[in-house]
């Protein structure tokens, strides 16, 4: 089912959690709602589920306007961060509970619940209570319970944040598998970029209630719409430097001149942010864009992480392990096309 969100706003009075949000989510996709804590992504999810009424704006499920529709009539399946399993019920009863509310006959709902349990691989735990399950198992039960009603959309609020690191990777792949098998349109909230990148079809990136960019994961990484998107994605964090356009070059604070093809089209005197991914920087090779000084190197095994001073800034770059640079050594710095962005220093808009 396609979800269309138009001018959606949530004003809590003290703060605007979601601000004039527009997005279209295609049917059958797995969407990550990504952003730092407090950016409004959970608010967004709660508005889609209907738990939270919106202040203004519209939400459409396919062609139906569901903005004023109560949660139970929207046909959404919701998985909570803490799973929200009923502690006094067994796994089977938990999964079957949504059907129990709908007054489905016991035999029928238990059969359906068993089918769901099989889908999420908890069919050997049906008689256990939630307390006797591991975090990952509880998560699976919560997903099964959300799916049993054949929801039009499955919503997961930080589904992996309560799990330990290893289980997290396993569960995210499970979420992907279950989503692929059921083909249900799925939206999950996360603040972990790696989680979002690895399993989603599209990422919706938010900040301070504003939509930043909707894109496929690789596209988001390679073509960020603005400075925040470039900052938010990538590990180690992108190198961020400030400078001014002068004679078709970017002069960074501290006087380092960076020759950049893209800078030639920018107006003279424009204040810009030059952001460079560590893997986009080469040191002492044929490609030359600027000159800098090596200030620190850290051996990482297969490569060396070098801090190179460009003007007032120290940028991270990976250099091959066989090369070695001493502290204070002057080097040439080359910038690859991919992974180097110029943003307007004031608005953060992408310039090149």
């Amino acid at each position, binding site marked *: 089912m396609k979800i269309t969100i138009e001018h959606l706003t949530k004003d809590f009075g003290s703060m605007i959690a979601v601000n004039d949000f527009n997005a279209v989510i295609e049917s059958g996709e797995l969407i990550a709602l990504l952003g730092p804590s407090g950016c409004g992504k959970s608010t967004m999810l709660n508005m889609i589920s209907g738990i939270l009424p919106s202040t203004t704006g519209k939400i459409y499920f396919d062609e139906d306007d569901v903005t004023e529709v109560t*949660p*139970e009539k929207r046909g959404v399946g919701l998985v909570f961060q803490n799973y*929200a399993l009923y502690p006094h019920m067994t796994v089977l009863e938990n999964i079957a509970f949504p059907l129990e*509310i709908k007054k489905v006959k016991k035999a029928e709902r238990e059969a359906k619940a068993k089918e769901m349990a099989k889908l999420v691989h908890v069919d050997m735990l049906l008689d256990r209570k939630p307390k006797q399950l591991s975090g990952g198992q509880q998560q699976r039960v919560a997903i099964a319970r959300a799916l049993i*009603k054949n929801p039009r959309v499955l919503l997961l609020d930080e589904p992996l944040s309560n799990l330990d690191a290893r289980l997290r990777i396993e569960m995210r792949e499970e979420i992907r598998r279950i989503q692929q098998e059921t083909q249900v349109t799925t939206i999950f909230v996360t603040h972990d970029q790696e989680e979002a990148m690895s399993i989603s079809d599209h990422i919706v990136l938010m900040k301070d209630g504003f939509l930043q960019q909707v894109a496929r994961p690789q596209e988001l990484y390679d073509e960020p719409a603005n400075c925040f998107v470039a900052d938010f994605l990538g590990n180690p964090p992108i190198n961020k430097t400030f400078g001014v356009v002068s004679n078709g070059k970017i002069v960074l604070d501290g006087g380092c001149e960076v020759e950049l093809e893209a800078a030639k089209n920018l107006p003279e005197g424009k204040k810009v942010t030059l952001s460079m991914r560590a893997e986009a920087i080469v040191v002492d090779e044929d490609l030359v864009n600027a000159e800098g000084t090596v200030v620190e190197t850290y051996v990482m095994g297969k490569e060396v992480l070098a801090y190179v001073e460009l003007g007032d800034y120290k940028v991270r770059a990976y250099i091959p392990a066989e090369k070695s640079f001493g502290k204070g050594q002057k080097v040439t710095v080359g910038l690859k096309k991919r992974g180097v962005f110029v943003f307007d220093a004031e608005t953060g808009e992408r310039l090149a």
Partner: protein
Amino acid sequence: MSKALKEITLGRVFIYLFLIAGAVIMIFPFYWMITGAFKSYVEIGQYPPLWWPTTFNFDNFVIAFEMAPFLTYFRNSVVAMVGSVSLCAFTTILASFAFSKLNFPGKHVIFGLLLGLMMIPFEMIIITNFRTIIDIKIYNTIFALIIPFTSSIFYTYILKGFFDSIPDSLYQAARVDGCSNWKYLWRVMVPIARPSLVTIILLNAIASWNSFMWPMLAVVERDLRTLPFGLYAFVSEGGAETQLMMAASTIIVVPMIILFLFARKQIVNGVARGGLKG
């Protein structure tokens, strides 16, 4: 190592001695009551006190039963207790749910006011309550022992505290699935809160079972009297027949002890659960 072990055991010895002393203090009155129920008139008045009756005779029980209509009193006590406790549990559950999970204007003010009412001792409202039961024409009926006790701010406060500890996501999960408040309350909240509920029901049952002043005022007919009044009858009617009073007391206490033994596991669960929350 062995020294540390020794210290621990010494500390434990003191802890156990302390606990044993506490237990003796708690149990002694019961011991005195039960043994007293089997003593003769002479034995119970003896000095120095006789720790163990020379012969166990059940005569005291038989006489006690003859002197006061205990079966009638027992029936009245049970009816009053079951009536007031079950109605009180019902209103307490509803009120706790409303104050804990529902949002309505003035919620905190109303709850604050209700809590404030707890500061007024029961003795102070006896006269107004008495007037009320006369006005609504239930004076000297069994309803006079039930109706005034169908709600409790104190138990509402306790249960609301427990309801507050149940995460809201459970409520939201149920709402998204189309669960009504009513169904959510009885199918999810109440089963989860069962240990707390059993505790307040038991406390309420004991209070109802032992209540003396109100039943004495609210009903005058002998057929409507409750068990504690039966004891009172011994003082005035039976003179200083202490051994009969002990027998009667034993009869009165036994049902509560049985009730407690049944509910004990639930209460311990409730306490342990509170400690392990998280």
